[in-house]
Structure formats: structure tokens, C-alpha cells
């Protein structure tokens, strides 16, 4: 029967056009994905991408603004989760969940926690309390069965010895396991786990992996999982969905997602696993200073990310210094890496097809050096096609590259507006953040696209606005906040007197 369940590949949960707005804040925007029956589906993405919100919609804690959530039970019954109350979803649709910040009943014992989870069947067998109160044997039997079931799960999570201790007294990792067991005691068909491996060390997450695979294989329960620990996600999930800013940016098998440049840029960076591999290689190669090598590796990774994905929170504290040249040490591992990974890494190499800048490397000899030392050929098609590539280590502003999003909208390949400059006039940029609506991140993006002065913004035409919004990923904000008007006023003001201290300006 179990194998039958696994072969049955129909979707247990279909999320269609799901949107969730909190006031003006769009937490989820038009999200579509499916969770397959008998499979482990992982939901990953940067912090605040809306993953937990998706969970809350599925489990009924939020009512989605729009969209449809269809749960298909094994017996063929279909439930529209967005129309059901939270506790009915667990009771009827058989969806159970855990919480990011563990929500155990800390004053009840471990055993009691598991008994509370069996509330509904016990309620029935106790004749809604009345028969149980009078001591009918049906309840006694049901209560004994419930304890047996609890014992089964306690054995599974290795907590039988602590069954009579308060749940609040357990160490963190055990609490996480107990929460999963408690959810399983509701006999769910879909188990939603919100960061089950958070706070677990490598060994404990390995045990967690085993437990989750066990649950999937033995009970046939499908699992939907939010997780940041890639050792969990990549090893056990059958399918991965990646969210960013409430929208899906990638969807597929762990391997395909892992190598999707968008995901790497937005979320993964360089994986720990790669670092471990590299570590081993470094050891083999007789490099003494392991930490230094690792350090370089991750430094480079940060740069890759910064360049390819300006929305990602940039290491501003780090980046205040001059751009660090990527050191050749990091590149030594390239030839040995798997081809797919090489493609991903190639995002850090210049992708000539799309880069239409006048002089990217010239301004930064380090970049040129990097390009030269890297043995990677810039052919990697998967990466090159995606317009996210920018030269590595090129922090200086006069670098233009294809915009990260909606490239077809921009009139110029460089992604910039018509009046883009290669460098600020007189080497001094205006404080664009003085315009309401422009923050440091946007200022950096504007600088990267050759906008340094108020008068440039002031002279924007409609097409320019569209182009700018494309790379800033704004819809209509420029007009709404009247950047052009603001810029005109600022430009006028700055003509009268020179701009004072400019900590926010480009360097």
C-alpha cells in the first residue's frame, strides 16, 4: 500500500494564484505550485520572502487575499483550504503543521502533548466527555490506544525515557522532534514543517533527515517543508520551490534548483558543501591556512551575489572599503567541479553576450586579472542566457550590465536610460537618496546604471522611467513619488549652492 502511495504522483496540494496582502504590503504575489503525494516538497527562499505566510494560508491561520488552495485526500475528497477554519483543516483535510518558534505545551508532559494531539478521535470515543465521565469502557480502551500510539511516536523520536517530563524541560532539538511527533499524532496526510532543522547541529539535522524520510516512507505522509539548512533540503526533498518577495523564482528538483543562477544569487550563495569540498581539496593540495582559503571563498561569493543581484541585502558594512580583488585561490577549484556547478560559478565571470558596457575591466585591473586567472570558459550557456551576470569584483560605479529583471523593456541593452553617464561629472555624484523614495540600495542601482545627478532624473522621459523601473523592480513608484519633480527641485537647489557633505553619494 505504501509503495502504491508513492507511485501515485498526483498532487496532494495545489496552490493556485495565491496572493496575500497585509495592508499595502504584498507578502505573496500570484503564487502557483504543487506538492506531490508521498513526496517531500521544500519551500525555500530569503528571509521575509513569504514562506511562513504560505504555510499560514495553507493551514488556515491566514485567509488569503486571493487564490485557491486545493487539498486532495487519499480517499479522493477535495478540500478548498482557503475556505476552512484552521482547526477544521487539521481535523478534516488532515493537514498538520509545526511552528518556526516551537509551540509545545511546555507545562504538559511529553506524553500529554501527544495525547492532546489525538483530541478529536478521543473526544468521539469519550462520547463528547459524557460517556467518558461516567466511566464507559469504550473511552478507557481508546485512551489506552492513544497512549500506545504516543509511545510509538516517542520511540520513533527517541524520547520514551522522557515521556513523563514537562515538554518545556527538553533540550531544543528534542522539542523540535516532539513537535513533529505531535503533529504526526493527528494522523495527517500532509505535514507542514516550518524550519524543522533550525537550531540543530549537523548531526541532529542528519537524524531529522532520517526521521522525515521514515515518516514519508512508512506512513505515506506527504511533507511540505520550509528550511534554510541546505543539508536537509537538498538531501531529502523530492521537489524544491523557491520564493523571493512573495513570488516563485524557481521550481524543480533539488539539483536543478541548486544550480539555478537566480536561486544562487537570491538565496544560496556558494553552498557549504562546496566549501567542504574545497576544504578537502585545499587540504589535499597542502594549503595550510584552511580558514584563509575558506574566507576567500566566501568573500568572493558575497561579491558574486552583490554584483548579480543588487536587491539582495548587500554587505554594506563590509562593502564600505574598497572593492576586494577576488583572489586566484578561489578559482583553483573550478576545473574539478561538476559541470553544472561550473555553469553556476560562471555568473562571476564576464558574460560577454550581454555586457554592453564601454569599459568594465579597464577601470579595475583586478577584475581583468580575475578573468584571466579563471580557467572557466565563459561559454556556460545556462548562466549566460540569464541576464544576471556582471563582472566580478567590479564595485566601481561606471559598470553597466544588463538589468536584473525585465530586460525586454529597456531600450538600451545596458539596461540604462538614455542619459546614462559612464561616470559622475567632476567625479562627484549627487546625493540621490535625498529624493524621497530612493534609498541606498536604489541609489547604488541607479549609479550602476549611470545615473548620478539630479538633472539626469529630472530630464527622464516616459521611456526612461519605464527602463529605470524595470531595473529597480518598481511599478509606478517613480511617478507616484514624483521623483522627476523632486529631482528638478533638487537640481535647481544644487545649482545655487554646492552640495554639502555627501556620505550617501557614490564614491
Amino acid at each position, binding site marked *: 500500500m505504501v509503495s502504491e502511495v508513492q507511485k501515485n504522483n498526483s498532487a496532494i496540494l495545489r496552490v493556485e494564484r495565491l496572493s496575500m496582502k497585509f495592508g499595502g504590503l504584498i507578502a505573496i504575489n500570484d503564487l502557483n505550485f504543487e506538492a506531490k503525494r508521498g513526496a517531500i516538497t521544500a519551500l525555500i527562499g530569503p528571509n521575509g520572502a513569504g514562506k511562513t505566510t504560505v504555510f499560514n494560508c495553507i493551514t488556515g491561520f491566514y485567509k488569503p487575499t486571493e487564490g485557491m488552495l486545493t487539498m486532495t485526500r487519499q480517499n479522493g475528497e477535495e478540500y478548498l483550504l482557503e475556505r476552512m477554519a484552521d482547526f477544521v483543516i487539521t481535523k478534516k483535510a488532515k493537514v498538520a503543521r509545526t511552528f518556526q518558534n516551537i509551540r509545545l505545551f511546555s507545562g504538559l508532559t511529553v506524553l500529554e502533548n501527544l495525547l492532546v494531539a489525538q483530541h478529536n478521535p478521543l473526544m468521539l470515543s469519550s462520547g463528547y466527555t459524557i460517556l467518558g465521565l461516567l466511566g464507559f469502557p469504550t473511552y478507557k480502551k481508546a485512551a489506552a490506544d492513544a497512549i500506545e500510539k504516543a509511545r510509538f511516536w516517542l520511540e520513533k523520536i527517541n524520547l520514551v525515557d522522557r515521556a513523563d517530563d514537562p515538554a518545556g524541560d527538553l533540550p531544543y532539538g528534542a522539542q523540535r522532534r516532539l513537535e513533529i511527533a505531535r503533529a504526526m499524532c493527528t494522523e495527517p496526510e500532509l505535514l507542514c514543517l516550518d524550519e524543522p532543522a533550525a537550531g540543530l547541529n549537523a*548531526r541532529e539535522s542528519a537524524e531529522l533527515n532520517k526521521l522525515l524520510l521514515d515518516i514519508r516512507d512508512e506512513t505515506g505522509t506527504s511533507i511540505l517543508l520550509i528550511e534554510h539548512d541546505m543539508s536537509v533540503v537538498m538531501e531529502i526533498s523530492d521537489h524544491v520551490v523557491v520564493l523571493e518577495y512573495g513570488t516563485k523564482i524557481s521550481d524543480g528538483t533539488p539539483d536543478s534548483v541548486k544550480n539555478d543562477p537566480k536561486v544562487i544569487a537570491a538565496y544560496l550563495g556558494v553552498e557549504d558543501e562546496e566549501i567542504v569540498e574545497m576544504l578537502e581539496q585545499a587540504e589535499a593540495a597542502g594549503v595550510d591556512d584552511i580558514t584563509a582559503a575558506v574566507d576567500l571563498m566566501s568573500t568572493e561569493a558575497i561579491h558574486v551575489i552583490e554584483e548579480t543581484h543588487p536587491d539582495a541585502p548587500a554587505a554594506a558594512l563590509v562593502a564600505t572599503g574598497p572593492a576586494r580583488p577576488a583572489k586566484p585561490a578561489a578559482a583553483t577549484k573550478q576545473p574539478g567541479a561538476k559541470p553544472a556547478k561550473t555553469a553556476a560559478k560562471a555568473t562571476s565571470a564576464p558574460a560577454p553576450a550581454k555586457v554592453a558596457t564601454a569599459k568594465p575591466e579597464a577601470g579595475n585591473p583586478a577584475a581583468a586579472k580575475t578573468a584571466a586567472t579563471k580557467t572557466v570558459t565563459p561559454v556556460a550557456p545556462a548562466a549566460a542566457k540569464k541576464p544576471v551576470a556582471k563582472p566580478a569584483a567590479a564595485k566601481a560605479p561606471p559598470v553597466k550590465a544588463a538589468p536584473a529583471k525585465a530586460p525586454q523593456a529597456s531600450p538600451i541593452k545596458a539596461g540604462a536610460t538614455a542619459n546614462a553617464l559612464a561616470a559622475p561629472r567632476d567625479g562627484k555624484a549627487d546625493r540621490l537618496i535625498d529624493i524621497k523614495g530612493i534609498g541606498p540600495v536604489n541609489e547604488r542601482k541607479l549609479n550602476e546604471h549611470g545615473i548620478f545627478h539630479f538633472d539626469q532624473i529630472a530630464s527622464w522621459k516616459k521611456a526612461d522611467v519605464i527602463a529605470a523601473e524595470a531595473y529597480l523592480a518598481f511599478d509606478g513608484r517613480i511617478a507616484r513619488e514624483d521623483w522627476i519633480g523632486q529631482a528638478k527641485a533638487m537640481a535647481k537647489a544644487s545649482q545655487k549652492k554646492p552640495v554639502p557633505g555627501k556620505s550617501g553619494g557614490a564614491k
Partner: protein
Amino acid sequence: MAQNKALLSIENVETYYGNIRALSGVTVHADAGEIVTLIGANGAGKSTLMMTIFGMPRARTGRIIFDGKDITQLPAHEIARLRIAQSPEGRRIFPRMTVQENLQMGASLDKLEYFDEDVRKVFDLFPRLKERINQRGGTLSGGEQQMLAIGRALMARPRLLLLDEPSLGLAPLIIKHIFEAIKELNKTTGLTVFLVEQNAFGALKLADRGYVMVNGIVTMSGASKDLLANPEVRAAYLEGGRH
């Protein structure tokens, strides 16, 4: 051990929860300008040690000395006044206050002239928080709350920063980013960091020295790269899932 230059030294500390001994004879120190990490399994007592530094719970025996001053019996708020800041386990942000207010709560009162600058630095580190500046702490996502807790600790311009699992619930990219920032702060301002982590690999990579804790006892200590290379440590904390 270089006792005389230690900024924080914990000597032979024992801590109890009720009758249960959580820490037994822990001796750990952090020199000024050092990043020290404490790794170990869940329930080993790492967070307890972190909280014991703040006197919650108080050490039953032993001494905790910060900058030459015995702080073992000081009340927590006075310890905080010595510019020891903490990003505690479980985040503990103020859920009904906005992001901005949370950061204000973290700011040290005698250094208010730096307030704007510090807020800007925190926002540079976590642009996500800036986007959420007027949102209540409790409505942030888990990872954002973690960022806020770290940001709030940084607002105190600490001399010693205690970080209890800063990477908990954060995306891999942000974790790297935070570790980078810690390193940078340490390099540029000489900030001393005491770091408790599950992510042993990341922590050891970042730290100068490390301690390994098992059941409330420090079983191993040494330079990070030695620990990283130590087969026992690797087997227990670094490679659990992979071999």
C-alpha cells in the same frame, strides 16, 4: 593563559536550574579583539553559559570577570551598562514596538550622539529592516526578527557582543553576510565577539578560537583551525549528515 589581557574571563562557573546542574566548572575566556566561539550539541549548556554571563541564572560558584571587574553578582541591567550586548536565544525582540523603536531600545543611553550613524549601519547591514522600519517587531518574519535582534545588540556599541545562534532561521546568504559583518566589525573596531553556534563550521571559520561543550563541561578548546582539523570535532559537529 593570557589572563591579564582577557576582556571576559569565566572561571570555574557552575550554574543550576533548580537542582539540575547545567554548567559544571566552566572556564572560558575571550581576549580583547577576539572572536571566540562555543560549539556543542543542543542542551549542552551553551545558551546557559551565555545567559549566566548576564546573571540570568546567576552562577552558583565561580567568577565572571569583565575588563577586570567581577560581574558575577551584578544585576543584568548593570552588566548591560558595561557595554556587553546580547542577541539572545529566541530573539526576544519587543513584538509590539516597531523596528525603529526596537533599535532605539537597544541604543546605549550615553552614546546617543551616534544614534543616527548606528541606525544607518544596522540598516546597511540589514536593508530588509529598513524596508520594514515602521512595522511592528512581532509581524516580522522569523529571519527578520533575528536580524532585528542582532541589530538591536549592535546599537549598544558593545565592547563585548554575545551572539546566541545568530544564524538561526536565516537564509544561507544572510548567514554568510552576517558572519562577514561580524568579522569586519571585529577587524575595524576591535569588537570582541562571543559566539554560540550550531553551525559549527561557519562559527569556527569565523572565530579565532573555539571551545567545545558537552553536557555542561568544556571538553576541548583551541585555535579554530585546529578544531576544524580535529577529527573528533569534525565527526561530531561538522559532518554529521554527510558520512
